[in-house]
């Protein structure tokens, strides 16, 4: 049997509706992402019911657009991949239902992809040589994980956040500073002209008791308190400085834990992934600290860091190549485990 080579990926796990066509798990032929940011703005956060409604409205046109841009027909496809968790259940169900119906209609094998695994696979679309075993740091609005991967589909979680995800904290701080949503890119930009030592924010779980786990609720509370205090005193907050100091506190921990993991596990490859992986400071610092002659740090271009279907298609390609196909009772699993 020939290996599946052109895969259609679907991604609807949160508030982005995305469809992509990927060749051989490596080459992005198209990657359409329809963001819902504007829809949720006036609610100050993502409203699951509104996200689900929007996914249903636009998923099929988004698929058509991905097919057209890739210049392929349904008959050219050799598989369908969809992320079925973790995420918002109502959102996931739209993508999963459409993917199953398409796979059935077109007699194509179906792959159920773990969304976090998908983020890691965005790195396989960079053209870099990636060998196993490898380490990965996945940081986004929903997750903060250090992962060890022995081969395709063999993932172990070495560290996770005990409270807030790193990206979530960026969003909350941005909201407190009235910087809009999502918060990551604005804070990244402001921080470039700030002084990271202007505020002293805590770095949590840095001792041996923390292992490779993270905790960001402490730094969040400290930053929110500083904002409150400055406002109480009627002082104008220096957005550059507070962004810089806050970002440094988060990045210090991410980078140190990554360094620790790399020292524990002897790997040639360290992958950075997830929405926060678009942060320029994190990229630079991780390269400085973790990259050695033996270990190469790889990260995807910014458009492949945030939620997208190309990464899902890439992960799905390797799943299908292993013969790991999903059946038509594939369900959306909001807290899908990576290690299953």
């Amino acid at each position: 049997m020939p290996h599946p080579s052109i895969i259609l990926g679907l991604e609807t796990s949160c508030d982005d509706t995305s469809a992509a066509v990927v060749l051989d798990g490596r080459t992005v032929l198209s990657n359409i992402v329809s963001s819902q940011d504007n829809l949720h703005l006036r609610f100050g956060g993502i409203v699951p019911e509104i996200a689900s409604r929007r996914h249903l409205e636009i998923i099929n046109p988004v698929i058509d657009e991905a097919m057209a841009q890739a210049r392929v027909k349904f008959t050219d496809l050799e598989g369908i991949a969809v992320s079925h968790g973790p995420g918002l259940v109502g959102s996931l169900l739209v993508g999963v239902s459409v993917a199953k119906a398409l796979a059935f209609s077109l007699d194509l094998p179906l792959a159920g992809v773990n969304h976090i695994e998908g983020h890691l696979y965005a790195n396989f679309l960079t053209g870099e040589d990636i060998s196993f075993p490898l380490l990965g740091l996945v940081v986004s609005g929903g997750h903060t994980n250090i992962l060890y991967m022995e081969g395709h589909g063999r993932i172990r979680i070495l560290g996770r956040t005990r409270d807030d995800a790193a990206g979530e904290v960026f969003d909350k701080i941005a909201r407190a500073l009235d910087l809009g949503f999502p918060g990551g890119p604005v804070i990244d930009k402001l921080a470039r002209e700030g002084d990271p030592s202007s505020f002293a924010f805590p770095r949590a779980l840095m001792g041996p008791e923390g292992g490779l786990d993270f905790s960001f609720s402490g730094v969040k509370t400290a930053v929110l308190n500083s904002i409150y205090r400055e406002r109480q005193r009627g002082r104008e907050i220096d957005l550059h400085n507070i962004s810089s100091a806050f970002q440094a506190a988060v990045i210090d921990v991410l980078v140190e834990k990554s360094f620790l993991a790399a020292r524990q596990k002897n790997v040639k490859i360290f992958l950075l992934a997830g929405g926060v992986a678009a942060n320029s400071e994190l990229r630079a610092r991780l390269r400085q600290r973790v990259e050695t002659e033996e270990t190469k740090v790889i990260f995807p271009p910014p458009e492949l860091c945030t939620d997208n279907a190309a990464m899902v298609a890439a992960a799905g390609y390797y799943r299908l190549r292993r013969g790991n196909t999903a059946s038509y009772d594939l369900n959306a699993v909001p807290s899908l485990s990576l290690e299953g």
Partner: protein
Amino acid sequence: MLLLAIDTTTTVCSVALGEKDKLWAEITTNTKKTHSQRLMPAVQALLREAGVDKKQLQGIVVAHGPGSFTGIRIGMATAQGLAQGLDIPMAGVMTLDALAEGCAFASGLICPLLDARREQVYTCFYRGGTRGPQAMGPPEALSLDELITKAKDFGDDVIFTGDALGLFRKKLRAALGTSYSEAPFASRLNRAALVLQKGHRDWEKVGPVPAYELKPFYIRLPEAERRLREQRRGQKE
């Protein structure tokens, strides 16, 4: 004209296949498993049982609400995926219309009730007849009191149907007395055969909906949207 019908708007997962005036097959389950796990396997089994290849399908009719928001979306997303993959047209059937089909023989009024939560039902009154049930107004979400007032205003016998009947049965019977009656349980289920029946009739009259233009019929706004509007109204006053 061979159509596939889907209804997952309540706890019932139902799929049916047939031509005009002829049901070929129907699979209806009312179990604890989620629609997401039941629906596609049911479609596959339905076609296999009927000995039909999916490429023979000429159209899809889907119950597009009102009902459970998630149920509506699973049915519609599946129907849309099938229509897109098979390159065939689709159309929607309103769930209350389909339920009324199950009681089309009634001499008085027909009133389907679907659970709308918050002590309300999605409902609509129909008059039975040989041309199929005729709606007496737009579908809406009503409280029990509003429903009783409406029924009394019509001043006619009413046969109630639908999955929310159990919630209001006692009070409706007490309030309406001899004008109250209810459909037997097999006619109260949201069965795809009923969607198929109505779907075929509509298809002849108005045809399918242009691609991607079928809208889910939620009736209600999302909770967050409703609250935001109430807040704004409060601020204006």
